[in-house]
């Protein structure tokens, strides 16, 4: 049964990803992207990464995409103001994207198919992740707060209008 779920989710993800790229209206792109995220979250569940699935939904679909929508409305971009590229440019873009995929795939087609054995399905559980995160990865965890801080400062500095002097 999981096969079908997997294939369905993959199909959904890829299709909506394509729609993100090709739909004219940015708002639609955002919505399709949300759909993609849900599909990926489904994959996480399949992979026993339930916690990540939830986080993924919360962060991406819940926060980042909302932010995108905000900006779209803020800048009033719901109408597609984007000038269309020349056809040959489009063609070249599609072509090179496809080529990239082919080359990446080609590197694996020699590889014998590795069965996905899950000798330890417990790792996805929040508790286990927490142990790893707060023991091994304590330093990156603290440093990432520096990252978020600098993002915060940067965002305020750039997007807030200066007080008139």
């Amino acid at each position, binding site marked *: 049964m999981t096969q079908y779920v997997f294939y369905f989710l993959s199909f959904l993800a890829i299709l909506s990803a394509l729609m993100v790229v090709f739909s004219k209206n940015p708002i639609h792109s955002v919505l399709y992207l949300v759909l993609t995220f849900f599909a990926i979250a489904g994959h996480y569940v399949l992979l026993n990464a339930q916690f990540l699935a939830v986080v993924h939904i919360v962060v*991406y679909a819940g926060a980042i995409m909302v932010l995108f929508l905000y900006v779209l409305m803020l800048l009033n971009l719901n109408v597609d103001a984007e000038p269309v590229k020349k056809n040959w440019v489009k063609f070249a873009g599609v072509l090179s994207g496809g080529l990239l995929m082919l080359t*990446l795939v080609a590197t*694996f087609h020699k590889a014998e198919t590795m069965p*996905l054995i899950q000798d330890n399905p417990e790792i996805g559980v929040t508790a286990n992740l927490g142990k790893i995160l707060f023991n091994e990865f304590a330093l990156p965890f603290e440093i990432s707060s520096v990252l978020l801080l600098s*993002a915060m400062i940067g*965002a305020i500095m750039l997007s807030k209008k200066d007080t008139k002097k």
Partner: protein
Amino acid sequence: MGTLQAIPLNHYILVSVILFSIGVMGVLLRRNAIIIFMCIELMLNAVNLLMVAFSAHHGDGSGQVFVFFIMAVAAAEVAVGLSILIMMHRNTNTTDVGFLNKLKF
């Protein structure tokens, strides 16, 4: 998890590579900065998927923790990127990257 064995790892690699390439394609095709951001997000998500698949494959949690960090970074990047976008829009009234061609040669 007998059922899961039916899906080879390569399928996951394939899916994420496809998603990644679609993201790249989007970056190449679109000129609207916001859409380009989204496509970059798509690329990152493809990586996340791959990471989780590998981590499940190896039964090693650090992969998922790494994904965790990727998400944090993605959030930070989006925050900064969008503020840059806002600033640019405030000055030029457009989000079309094709408009950025003053600096050249």
